[in-house]
């Protein structure tokens, strides 16, 4: 019999529905990734015990780990489904089932799809933008040495996948912690020559409840980040600046 891939998927048809696990067996092909497995199920939505079911709902778009959509728990680990290769996941034990579940720290929409809009709200709160005067032609931007670009570019690679938030022990309802991604963006915009005009406002936004002080330096974020952002370094740098800002504000405001 040709080889199959066993998959167990945690499903929920809507936010109020009961959580169930469905098992599937997918014909093996070399070089499959998790999104192609889910595509196979859509073409043939039948569980391992022969029951017809609905295709799996999940977020995806670019399928090359740059849009940040398809984060989920794969064998218990938060990662991007498109870059999770079946052959690697099953290396050594091809009979072991692959488990898929939605990220655990965000409200489930359906099956593997979750609502991560909190990150975009956070980016608004810290004003993660350069407040340009307008889009009309104002000539060239100030010169910027390559060293600055080298430091900014890695931070600007954040794909908003929220994996750093998922794996952070401090990211929960009781702390309201904004999470590493938002803090890294604060560093990014504070480093931009024109963006730094909002530096103080950004630092103050991270000073109170849910701000940098909530970080427990577990360092899970930097290990899990699929784009290898220097997250812990960004958190330390921004924390230092937040403290300096708080001291300044204490004496001047």
């Amino acid at each position, binding site marked *: 019999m040709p080889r199959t891939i066993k998959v167990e998927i945690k499903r929920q*048809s*809507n936010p109020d529905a009961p959580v169930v696990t469905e098992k599937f067996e997918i014909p093996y*092909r070399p*070089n499959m*990734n998790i*999104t*192609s497995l889910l*595509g196979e199920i*859509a*073409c*043939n*939505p039948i569980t391992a015990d022969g029951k017809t079911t*609905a*295709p799996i*709902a999940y977020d*995806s*778009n*670019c*399928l*090359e*780990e*740059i*849009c*940040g*959509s398809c984060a989920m728990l794969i064998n218990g680990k938060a990662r991007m489904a*498109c*870059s999770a*290769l079946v052959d*690697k996941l099953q290396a050594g034990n091809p009979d072991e089932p692959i488990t898929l579940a939605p990220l655990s720290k965000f409200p489930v*929409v*359906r099956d593997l*799809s979750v609502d991560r*809009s909190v990150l*975009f709200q956070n*980016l*608004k709160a810290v*004003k993660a*933008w*350069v*407040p*340009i005067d307008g*889009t009309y*032609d*104002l000539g*060239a*931007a100030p*010169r*910027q*040495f*390559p060293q*600055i*670009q080298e430091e*900014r*570019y890695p931070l*600007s*690679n954040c*794909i*908003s996948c929220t994996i750093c938030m998922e794996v952070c022990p401090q990211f929960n309802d009781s702390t309201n912690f904004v999470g590493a991604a938002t803090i890294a963006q604060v560093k990014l915009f504070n480093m931009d020559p*024109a*963006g730094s005009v909002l530096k103080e406002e950004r630092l103050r936004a991270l000073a109170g409840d849910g701000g940098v002080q909530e970080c427990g330096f577990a360092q899970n974020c930097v290990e899990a980040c699929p784009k290898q952002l220097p997250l812990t370094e960004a958190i330390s740098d921004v924390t230092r600046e937040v403290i300096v800002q708080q001291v300044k504000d204490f004496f001047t405001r």
Partner: protein
Amino acid sequence: MAASPRIIVVGGGLAGLSSVIKIAEAGGTVYLFSIVPVKRSNSVCAQGGINAAKDLKGEGDSVLKHFDDTVYGGDFLANQTPVKNMTAQGPAIIDLLDRMGVPFNRTPEGLLDFRRFGGTLYQRTAFAGATTGQQLLYALDEQVRRHESEGKVTKYEGWEFLSAVLDDNGVCRGIVAMNLRTMETRTFPADAIIICTGGNGAIFGKSTNSVVCTGSAQSALYQQGAFYANGEFIQVHPTAIPGEDKLRLMSESARGEGGRVWVPRDRNDKRVARSIPEADRYYFLEERYPKYGNLVPRDIATREIFKIVYEDNMGIDGQPMVYLDLTHLPKERLHKLEGILEIYEKFVGDDPREVPMKIFPGVHYTMGGLWVDFNQQTNIPGVFAAGEADYSIHGANRLGANSLLYCIYGGFVAGPQALNYAKALKPATGDGGHAAELQRQNEKNKQLTSSSGTENPFKIWRELGETMTKHATIVRYNAGLDEADAKIVELLHRYKNINLSDKSQWANTSFAFTRQLYNMLELGRVIVRGARLRDESRGAHYKPEFPNRNDEQFLKTTKAAFVDGAPSITYEDVDTSHIKPRPRVYSST
């Protein structure tokens, strides 16, 4: 005149966000609709860079040279006036992006760095590593977030455009959209709408495009009376990584930084790539195109790779693959390509710094699209379009790194033009067609949910992709195109017998997909029909039966109209008011 014009922008990639910013700046009220959170739009996939003739390398580059390269690269099919305007705006657009904080690569002196791209001899492409599209999209996304926080923009993320609302006079009065969670369908009034919904790679099954790039919105408008222009012009990118679920792009910047394409001279050479000495390697692009080398335009590189594999039988190990070799590049050059090297490493498992990459062409870009006038307006009053969704600028073949420039330029034109149009718009009589259009869409939904057939939509999609890829990509034969059209007609017939395996009314992704699928089928016919009737070879459209360009008959824009349920093709003259068409030859020395 509407007091405060309401503009709806559909699509949150570079073109959509650019339109939104211009409208918000001008004081308009703007509503932004997107299937995905806009930060996850397909523009993030663009890698290599953005063109602008800033001439910071002392090469004597100029806006006019950029203009000429673009028109020539597009085999003279593009209307020249918009191209001229776009290239003239290039340098200012780059400066603006720089001011927005895009982390462009720099020279030691702190100026913008530029690299060379295909179809030009100048270093004209500004870049942020090898993830330029992502960086530009983020910069615009941030500006839109800022306008949103100031209440000038309202986002409807997770809503899919279904159709335009047209009044009795055929004037656009809004849109019908579907909430992808609640599956609610409703209408939204607008004085003008701008369609920025990107390309249609999904019609080919596997492509370098994102999942949302189905062309569904463009097709819906075409079925409502909009002309779809130059549908047959589909760019197949020369260098993609073949994959199970998609073809992953390997940016032209790999060659811009010095990457070389080759195969072993002896097709039976079984040696490991790096151990094959120079003399035994066939750098076929460099030998055949000494001046441009590996940086010939994409249509040409793609055809050469295709020929090496299928005519000369020289693919690596007899497989449809050739080497794209970066292993000889110095570290600092490789560093500028990190983003794409990581993609290759992650998805293939080999380190491209050590092992030559194996690549093959893949469907990449939609040169055709909604027909627009020079103000970005379609033939439906009040419906504008910009970016990959429209047909302007790229002609028969797009030059690398012109897409990002055009998306932003197109949005910058469409936004203010839509606003001007809306300000002069007379109020609708009655409800402007809202109730009727909503009912039409609800009926379509009802048909789908009540259909109890046997056809799986995802399987129909696969068959569509297979037939389109086989007959309507790199090499096209009239017999094959006829076969493809007949196949799509068959699929449209089978679509009536569809079985939605999920009939629920919550976050039903297969329902949304099945709606898109219908539009993909109709647009597939436009592509195939346009290709069938164009008996010549021009840019990306290549017919061995008609190997030459035929300006007398086909220096014309193809316009498809939806008549009696099928594409009806007419032709329109191309604006050649600035550069006289000349033979397109890249092989000279």
